């Protein structure tokens, strides 16, 4: 199993570096093993160098930068072994418009290989969806599903 871990780790490492640059629009992301001599127990460290900044531990990043690093890591695993579907609940909340657009662009590119279900309050994300469901409580306390068109949610 340790060769299997090594093979998986190398794929995830490659995808992470690639996705980091795509999501941040530049810069460099790096995974490192805490103990490369022991595949059975080693941990994984994450280093990030947003465009124009120095390479640093992720602790010093901003709220939005941390969320973007986390998404790069999760998607790196998704690309290593794509799951049949993917459900994301308001992961775009801390992101600015530029980062939301790059994030959505990636999902659009992958949308023929998997199903993506996004719960969101962000209009830019809604605009990229193929189908849109609304959940409402017309009767207080009782959830109901309604179909919603993009014009209804546009500002």
């Amino acid at each position, binding site marked *: 199993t340790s060769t299997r871990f090594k093979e998986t780790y190398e794929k995830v490492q490659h995808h992470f570096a690639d996705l980091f640059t795509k999501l941040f629009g530049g810069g460099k992301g790096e995974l490192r093993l805490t103990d490369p001599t022991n595949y059975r127990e080693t941990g994984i460290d994450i280093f990030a160098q947003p465009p124009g900044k120095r390479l640093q531990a992720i602790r010093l990043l901003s709220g939005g930068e941390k969320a973007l690093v986390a998404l790069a890591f999760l998607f790196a695993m998704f690309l290593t072994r794509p*799951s049949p579907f993917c459900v994301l609940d308001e992961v775009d909340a801390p992101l600015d418009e530029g980062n939301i657009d790059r994030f959505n662009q990636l999902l659009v590119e992958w949308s023929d290989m998997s199903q993506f279900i996004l719960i969101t309050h962000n209009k830019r994300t809604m605009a990229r969806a193929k189908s849109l469901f609304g959940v409402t409580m017309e009767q207080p306390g009782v959830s109901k599903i309604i179909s919603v068109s993009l014009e209804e949610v546009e500002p």
Partner: protein
Amino acid sequence: MRIRRLELIGFKSFPFATTIEFPYEGITAIVGPNGCGKSNVLDALMWVMGATSPKLLRSRSMEDVIFAGSENLEPLGRAEVRLTIDNTKKLASEPYREIPEIEIRRVFYRDGESEFWLNGRRCRLRDIQEFFLGTGLGTNSYAIIEQGKVDAVTLARPEGRRLFLDESA
């Protein structure tokens, strides 16, 4: 494997039978005001796929998944979720490989009884959990991110992060 439809009956804030049909591929957005029931839909999906920890479902006990009543409606006695999986690409593991559509049902009664069904036949919780093994949708799934949990990756210790990797191996 894709999600074809999800049906909620008496699950959390959905007292009446509610069906959501999902397109085969692409992005589906679920929208609505605060507290309307969006994250409850995600809870229903995780529950029918075999989630056992109430804490994962933002609940104190499993009983919290049953409709607890509203201003005008009394609490119900059972919660049920049905998940219909499209398997036309034969990605499911044996013995389901050749079956084009697979229905998974989970029922919970207020007295604590549970029922699990796979394609119309009673089964155990473990059978449902095994159905999703190896698809990346297990307990440390990188493919299901609950509200507020995207930070779990950056806040986790280095040893914790490898659990995600083991899921994708």
